[in-house]
Every structure is written in C-alpha cells, then in structure tokens.
C-alpha cells in the first residue's frame, strides 16, 4: 500500500464550507448539462478548481435530472470534492421548474442557513398531473410558500418565458439569473464570456442571459403570455345588436354578485345560437334567482349562471364547424405558429363523425327513429364513420365546415337539441326540487354539470358519471351532509377515466344509505 503524507488535527468545524456547492435540478431535455458546462467554465476561467457531475442515462428522457458543481475557494489547487450533493450542504440551488424546486426542498437541498434558491416559476406538468380527467395540476403556490421559508434567499421568475421571448432556452436565462443573484463571486462579463466561448446560438443565449440577470434583480417585468383583449367587440346585424343590448340590460336586473358570471354565460349561449337563445338562458337564470337566498351570496344563481350556460352550449357538429371557421381563429393560429407575411399556412382539421353525430343532426322525430334502428345506424356508419382530414385553408375544405356551421338556424329542430333540452330541464327540475329542502345540495347538483364533457365515448362516459352521481345524490338526500357527499362523489368522478374512484365512493355511500 502507498502511505500518503496526509495527516491533520481536528478542526472542530466544517472545513469544506469554503467550497461552493451548487445543484441544478431540471427536467430532462431542459439543457441542464449546458448550464452546468457554463458554470464550470466561468469558475475554471477564474482560476478555481472545479468539478461537475451528473447522472445521465434514462433520466434524460423527460425525467427529473440533477447536476452538481463544486467550486474550490481561491488558492486551493487540489481539493477533494464530493460527487453528489448532500442534504443541508448546498449553497446555491437552481431549479429549472417549480416542482423541481419543491423536490429540492423535499430532499433537504434548500436550507435557511445558507441556500440561495433560484427557481423558474413556470410549470412543466408531470404526466400524473395531466392525465386526470379533472384538474390535477399541483399547487405551485405551496412550493413558493415553502421556498420562502426553506431558503436563505429565494429568487424566482418565469425563466422559461423569458428565454423563449428571446428565442433561446431556459438554461441561458437561468445562467443569467445565477449571475444576477450575485451568489458566485464572478463578474457579469465572466459569465457572458462562458456563453461566447461555447460558440452556439450565442446572440440569443446572451439576450436570454440578460433577461434572467435583470429579472432576479427586479429590474424588468416578466412579459405576460398574451395581453387579453379586455374590450368586447361585438359585431353583427343591427337587429341582433339591439337584441344583445337588451339582454345585457336584463342582466343588470340580476343580483350584482352574479352579473359578471351571467354576462359571460349569456355571451356564450348567444355566440352558440342567437339572442332568442340568450333570452331562454336568462329565463332559466331568473327562475333560479327567484328561489335563491340572498343571505347565501346568491351561490345558487352564481353556479346556475355558469353551468346552465355550459349545458346550453353543448358541443355539437355545428358548433365545432362554427368555431373552426371564425376569422379570429385563423389569426390566432398564425400568431401561435409565428407566421410572417411571406410564409404560407396550411391547416388540417382532424374530424371523425360517427352515426351518432350524423343522426343527432337529423330532425328530432326522424333522428330518434334512425337511432332506434340498428340497420340505419350501421348504414350511417358505413357512409360516414371514418377519420376525415379537412384542409380548412382550402376553399373546398372550408366550405364543408362553413355549410355545417350555417345549420345554426336549424339547430333547434335537431335530435341533439331535443335531447340536450330534455336533459337540461330534468336537471334543473331536480335542482329546484332539492332547493326546497337543502340549499347546499341544490348548489352541488348544479356543479355536477362539470362532469359532462368531451365527444363520443368520452361524452358518453361523462354522462354516465353524471347519472351515477345523481343516483348517489338520491341515496343521500335528506341527510345533513348530503351536499358534502355529492361534492365528494363529483370529485371522485373527476379523478380517473374509468370511474374507479367514483365506484369506491358510491360503495361507501351505499354502505350507510341502504
């Protein structure tokens, strides 16, 4: 064995405290490796001993990744570095996504005695968040709150947006934020030199670097996604416009607390059909308002304003065709895809009509007979049921959609309309009935409309979940906690596709109700 001359006496405190320990936590594909390389280059250029490590492999494929850098203090030529970060022993933590900041806190890499936490506020959603039929998005504000407690200094901005706005990627804006934080003892020029020496996409990277640098110093506001057009621009035939004005006036007679929602709902149903339909909407709403309780802040009417509007503007072929042929849509696509005036744009729609959609477009009586006939449904499927790619930038493709959208005037005679109308009436009747005994239950029943969404099978599944929850509501009606149970059932129904959670919740309900 080789005997090394390497003894020392105990020092009583952490001798590696002088080593700067920096962790980058990112999502695979975010360029964490590039960022790490830049940091290493800055330190090396300043004459510091430095070491970087990473865990490559399958983790790169969109999984959580971690990079680790140690920088020795000046004058230490051959330090012994650690290859992995340790809990409670990190000076700078860069999180390239908000939940990764949360993960860093969970792992103990962010501590209030020393860690500067630099995080991007944007979210890259995990599959588990995205696949929930309802809203499964994790709460970023919980992480933000934890970060305030966990870190010595917490610096954050939407680094993704800052970078994209400069035509670059997040590694550059995060590098700028690191420089701007002042957590490393190197000049801004030294950081920028590292980008220049890497030689690829230098100008865009430097711009994003500057944006990140200034963002953590509070010098600039992060640009918002797209400024929303606040002022509503209504256009159309004069008669309709005056009808619209009258409808708006009618909203003014509703309780003030619910007017905003009612206006939004009204616009949705009028855009879906016409002003007469808007009148029907307000009729429904006023009937609900009449049985509402002002002491409860008109919660019933508020929910009704929202869910009746959604129920009345159901997703039929006519609506889809209408939305896809609006002038504003084409402008939106051009803006989203970044089309310049010299460039062309081809738009292909993916449609797949089935016998159900075709037959529901028929006049109510005929449609009902066709749907009852297996023979006719099979025939319709043979004629129509196939995926259709429609080029809506071409006149022929556009015209197909345009003509369908033109069926709007005829819509109220369709089978689909009759079905939706019947469903709406039955639902509102139940709500009205429930209101007499249990206000909260009535509110929850209104909210159950959220379960009905999607097209074809998805729509059918939503309807069946709605029916199941309604059946569950029957079981608990009369109990003091009925409303709470309906809420729970609805939330269970939104948790997974097959309705396993709902099934479990219903079993529980049955166990005490039957």
């Amino acid at each position, binding site marked *: 064995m080789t005997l090394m001359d390497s003894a020392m006496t105990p020092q009583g405190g*952490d001798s*590696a405290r002088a080593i700067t320990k920096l962790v980058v936590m990112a999502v695979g594909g975010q360029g964490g490796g590039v960022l790490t390389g830049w940091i290493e280059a800055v330190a090396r250029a300043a004459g510091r001993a430095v070491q970087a490590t990473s865990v490559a492999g399958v983790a790169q494929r969109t999984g959580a*990744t971690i990079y680790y850098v140690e920088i020795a203090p000046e004058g230490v030529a051959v330090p*012994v570095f650690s290859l992995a970060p340790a809990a409670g022993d990190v000076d700078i933590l860069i999180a390239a996504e908000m939940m990764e900041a949360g993960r860093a806190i969970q792992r103990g890499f962010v501590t209030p005695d020393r860690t500067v936490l630099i995080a991007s506020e944007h979210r890259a959603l*995990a599959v588990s968040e*995205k696949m929930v039929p309802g809203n499964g998005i994790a709460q970023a504000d919980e992480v933000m709150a934890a970060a305030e407690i966990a870190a010595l200094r917490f610096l954050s901005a939407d680094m993704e947006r800052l970078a994209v706005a400069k035509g670059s990627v997040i590694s550059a804006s995060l590098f700028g934020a690191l420089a701007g934080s002042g957590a490393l003892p190197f000049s801004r020029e030294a950081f920028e030199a590292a980008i220049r020496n890497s030689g690829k996409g230098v100008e865009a990277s430097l711009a994003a670097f500057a944006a990140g640098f200034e963002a953590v110093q509070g010098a600039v506001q992060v640009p918002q996604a797209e400024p929303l057009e606040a002022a509503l621009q209504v256009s*159309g035939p004069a008669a309709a416009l005056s009808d619209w004005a009258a409808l708006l006036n009618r909203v003014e007679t509703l309780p003030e607390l619910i007017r905003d929602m009612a206006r939004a709902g009204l616009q949705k149903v009028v855009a879906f059909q016409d002003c007469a339909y808007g009148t029907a909407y307000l009729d429904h709403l006023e009937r609900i308002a009449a049985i509402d309780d002002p002491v409860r802040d008109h919660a019933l009417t508020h929910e009704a304003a929202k869910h009746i509007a959604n129920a009345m503007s159901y997703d039929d072929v006519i609506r889809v065709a209408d939305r*896809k042929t609006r002038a*504003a849509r084409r402008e939106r696509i051009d803006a989203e895809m970044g089309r310049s005036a010299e460039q062309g744009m081809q738009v292909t729609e993916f449609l797949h009509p089935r016998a159900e959609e075709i037959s529901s477009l028929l006049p109510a009586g005929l449609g009902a007979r066709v749907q009852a006939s297996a023979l006719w449904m099979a025939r319709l499927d043979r004629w129509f049921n196939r995926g259709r790619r429609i080029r809506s930038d071409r006149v022929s493709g556009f015209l197909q959609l345009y003509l369908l959208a*033109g069926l709007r005037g005829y819509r109220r005679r369709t089978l689909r309309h009759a079905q939706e109308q019947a469903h709406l009436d039955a639902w509102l009747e139940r709500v009205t009935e429930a209101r007499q005994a249990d206000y909260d239950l009535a509110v929850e029943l209104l909210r159950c409309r959220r379960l009905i969404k999607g097209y074809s099978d998805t729509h059918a599944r939503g309807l069946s979940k709605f029916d199941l929850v309604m059946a569950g509501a029957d079981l608990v009606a009369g109990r003091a906690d009925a409303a709470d149970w309906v809420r729970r059932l609805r939330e269970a129904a939104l948790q997974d596709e097959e309705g396993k959670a709902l099934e479990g919740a219903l079993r529980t309900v049955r166990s005490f109700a039957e």
Partner: protein
Amino acid sequence: MAERSFKREVQDLKLGAGETFTGEGILAITKALLESGVGYVGGYQGAPISHLMDVLADAQDLLGELDVRFEANASEAAAAAMLAASVHYPIRGAVTFKGAVGVNVASDALANLASSGVTGGALVIVGEDYGEGSSIMQERSHAFAMKSQFWLLDPRPNLPSIVQAVKQGFELSEASNTPVMLMVRIRSCHVTGQFACADNQRPPLSVRDALSEPRRDFARVVLPPMSYQHERDKVENRWPAAERFITERGLNEVFGPESAPVGLVVQGGMYNGVIRALQRLGLADIEGRSAIPLYVLNVTYPLVKDEFLAFAKGKEALLVVEEGQPEFIEQGLAAMLHRTGSPVRLHGKGLFPMAGEYTGQIMLEGIAGFLKDTAPQLLPGQVIAPNAPPPELPDLSQTVPIRPPGFCTGCPERPIFAAMKLVEQELGKHQITGDIGCHLFAALPPFEIGGSTMGYGLGPASNAAFDGGGARRAVSFIGDGGFWHNGLSSSVGNMVFNRSDSVAIVVDNYYSAATGGQDVLSSRAKNPSKATGNPISKALEGVGVKWVRQIDRTYDVGHMRDTIREALTTDYDGPKLIVASSECMLNRQRREKPLRTQAIRDGRRVEAPRFGVDADICTGDHACIRLSGCPSLSLTVLDDPLRDDPVASIDQTCVGCGNCGEVADAAVLCPSFYRADLVHNPGRWERLLAGWRSRIITWLQARRARQVLDFGEVS
C-alpha cells in the same frame, strides 16, 4: 449516429507528455487506454458507459492511426469474448459495458477467460449503474469477480486516479495472468477534472501483426484436464502474484495519521464521499488531509491480508465503508481478523444501511455514528449535542408529483402503445411483457402496458410459459436493440421452435435508442465503418417466422391498432411478429433540423408542421393525454370563468409527429386538434393561390358576420 458527438473532444486524446487534459471521466479512460498501448478495444453501450462507446466510435481515425482495432460488439458477451485475443497473444485489450447487467450477459465469456488466464493485459471497464438515476436492478458486479477470480479495481473517483488505475490494471493483469475489471461508478464516468498526459503508445504487437504468426497453447483451453489445472493455477500462482503486485506497487493507499484508536476501510470509489463527511465533521481538511486513518481499497478484490492486518494493528475499531450488498469486503475482512484472533472490532453494515446508495447524508450519519461509539473525543461539540433543532419545513410530499422518465416529444413508440391500449379497450386486458429499452416506459402512466422485464432481448422469451392457448394471446414487446443483442435467437427462435401461439411486437426505431442512439444492424443510416440496413423482417423470415407484418409508419395509429387486433384474433396459431418501424424522433430531429434550417436559409420551400388545440372546442377531459403523454401536449388554465378544468394545449416544442391527431381520429376523441404547416419560402404560384383562397374565405366569413353576432373571441 449517436446522441452525443465527441468529435471535438477526441482531439484532446492526441495530447502528449507535458500537456494537461481537461474533461470528462470517460474521455480520461480512453486517453489512458491509448497511453497504455492498448491493441484492441470494444464493448456494448449502456449507461453509464454509453458515452465511452461513443467516444471510441468517434475516435476511430485516431485508433486507426495507432493501429488499435475497435469493435462495436453485438453484446456484452461478444465484447468479453473478444478478450480471447489476449489469452494467447501479448496484446493488451479492453472492453467496456454496463454493470451489473452487462456482467450478467458476459459472465459465460468472463468465466472462460478467467479460467484460461491471459498473456496480454485484459481489462474490462464496467460502468457500475447503482443508486440514483440507475435504470436497472440494484446488484453488485463485485460478485462476478469473486466467483470467477478476476481482479476488481475501484479507483478513487478523480481523473488522475482513474487514469492510473487503467495503466495499473493492465500491468496487474499481465503480472498475474488474470483479467482485471475496472469499475467506474455512475458519477465518475461524467465527473470532470484534469490530469497530466503522457504520450500515446502504439501496441508493441498489433492484432493485425498477430495474424501473421498465429499462436495456440493447449494449456489455456478450458477442457479437462486443463480446466482442473486452471483452478489450481488461480489459487496457487495467479492469486499470490496479484497480491504481490498490489502490495509492491502500492495500489491501495493509506491516508491520515500513523497511529489512532480508530480507522476507516474504504472502497476507492467511496473515498470522496468519506472525505466530505470527515470535512463536515472537521476531521479532514479541504485537500483531504485526515485526522482519521483511511485504508483506501483501490483494489477491492482480492483483499490483501497482510496489508489489512498491518493497518488494523493497534486500532480498537474499524469501520468498513462498502456500498451495496452483500457486504463481501466486510465479510472478508472480518474473517481475516477472526482467524488471526485480532481484538479489533469491525463495524460496517448496521451503522450503514444494508441496501441503497451511500448518499452524503448517510455517509455523514454512518461515520459520525461510528465515531460517537468509538472515539467521541474526536468529534466537534455540536455533532454530539446539536444546540438548535433543524427548522420545520412544510410537507410537500402530497404536492410534488413524481417525474419518472418517459417517451420524448414525438416519439414513434407512443402511437404503438396508444394502439395497444385501444385494442385492450376492445378485447380486454392481455398478458404483456416488456423488454429492455425505451419502450419499457410504456409500463408507466399513461399507458401502463407490460408487467415484467426479464432481460435484454428476452421479452418474448419471458412469455414462453403463456403460449399454450387460453382466452387471449400473450403479447410481448422487444426493441430493435434487444432484438439484435439476444432476441433473434433467444426470443424469436424460441417462439418458432416451440410453435408459440403468441404475439411479439418489435419496436424498431432505427437505433439502440435508449443507450444514446448508436447504430445497430437494422439501422437505416449509412455508417462508414459498420454494415447497417439489414431489415428485421428479413431476419424473422430467415429464422422461420411465417406471420410477419411490417409497419413503416407507427404514427398511423389506426393501422397499428388494426394490425395488433389482427395478430390477436387471426386463426393462424404460430408465432405472430409485428415489426413497428419509425425513426427515433430525438435522432431524427438531430439529423433533419440542421438540414431544414439550411434549406430555409437557402430559400427552398419547407413545410414545418406543428399541432394545435382549439381551446374552445377542447372540453378538458384529457382523454388525448391518457393516450399520449407527449411532453409537448400539456394543459393550460383558461381565463374563462365558465371553465373549471384546464384544457389541452401544445407548446412550441411540438415536432409535428402527428400522433395526437391520429389518436384523436383512431379513438374518436374530439375535433379540437389541428395541424398547422407553416410553409417557408412558398413559391409564386402557391402564394397567388393562397391569396385567392384567403380572399374567398374572408368574404365568406364577412358574409356570416353580417348574419350572426360575432364576439371576436380568439380562444
């Protein structure tokens, strides 16, 4: 074409004496091989040494100049078998692969090699994939060194130590006629640092020259009676020779004070973690000088008894820092102490957890715990009695979602599993096995397809018990990498020979994609030094498969679904093979993007497809995501008081693969998807035509706007 190019870095491999190399661990290893006069190199890719194979591939010109033969072996077994060249010839050879799975595959060849013994230095460089970020079962390669008796190096994880270990490894191998395994842990492969270079050496005898003077020595053939002599030779000659070499050349190192009541016995690879823990306890300084004696095992097998006992002498207690289990080293050292009747108390597992990585925290707790028991006077006060409790932090365990790896944006494998999921919705759940490779991500949400993985190329073989009929046919998946690695014979040949009535789907993405996009036999790219373009379907026919369906565009979800359904329902009762081929999107983008950018710059017409979602048509059910999971298909929360649920949205990273449109069509999901092809540099006629179209469409839109109310919403 590999995922990462080292064309620039390999220039540094030409550095000579007096120059300093700066870079990654894997490059340092390659440089050390060249400085050692290696005659041939090979291996099989797999994390964490994939990049070592890529470096070797990118350095082929330099290897050629030095007369070094490079082989991209078909498997780890093939790589280990290649070391046979060092059995009879005094030529140094090195191969590399992933541990512990690579060692499993190679064990037949390694055992034979170890029995024969070697003349030239034979080095197996194993990337030990253990702990955080590992993609395999957690086992140790160490056991293979013990069972076959070849030597195991585990150098301290810094570039100079690793480089030195390569050189010493060859010498040790030659001094003891035994192959040597050099283990580099997952982070050492990518650790960056510097070392002083030496000149590259041409091999004294090249493999090319060796062919003109073939040699054989029956004494090295593994056949009785020679094999009995090999075993005795191992114990009586090779082992003592190795111990002598290790001792005389000082391969293991001792740090710290000469005398102390306690000491640490440390695997070389654990050294830095140990020093960090000691630094935090104030027992080591920033440059590694230590107040506690350390016996650092750069050679973890064999253990040298005399050396260890000399270190243990006079100490009251020792702590063995040995990651993973079983604790072979601790057991070996305990036996040595026991047999000599030593009073030294040996600690190890117990203070350290039996299973799992020795992270910074575990190292700190283990060493502090040992010192508290055995030498508390050495510890700083606050470790023995901490004065302030750590701060209370909010619990985020319910908030932060797990983020396992998954298919990349535009991955051609996603539609295969979307189709499988649709078929299962129709026909019911099936018995499904996976293999090794990217396609194994299908086991995770949102697909949740495949319940077992038995080894590389063994997907269909692992369904062999299930091909005797039953309610529904068993299905297995295998990647193109696994197919050529072992699958053609072990899986497909097995199905044919046993008249298996099951279905196997070969996921052919043109590369060994999961390991970084290396070429395989069926790759469609032209490779200047390898023979590509050998179709999998032809191999299937050649081995006797009668029912083969070749799909050349996996994104056609409908066709994919129909083909799988056909395979599951056909009357044919032999093996049914579907080859689902589309190029790995990561590689395709890397290949096409620069060409596209150049074409646009040159003013040529280019269509750039991307997908979009009409937010006001999307109802927020997310069925599309449950059939896709594409990273670019995400959710957005609308600024609309009427909408409770976030709707689907597609971000600018979309590569326009078309999967979401196809899935929406095949599964009849919803009409909110559209494809937008941005046309760069459209021709004159095209622009004219677009202008006419636009005028007609605008006129129609204006006409409608006069009839109905328009609120001008843009969502």
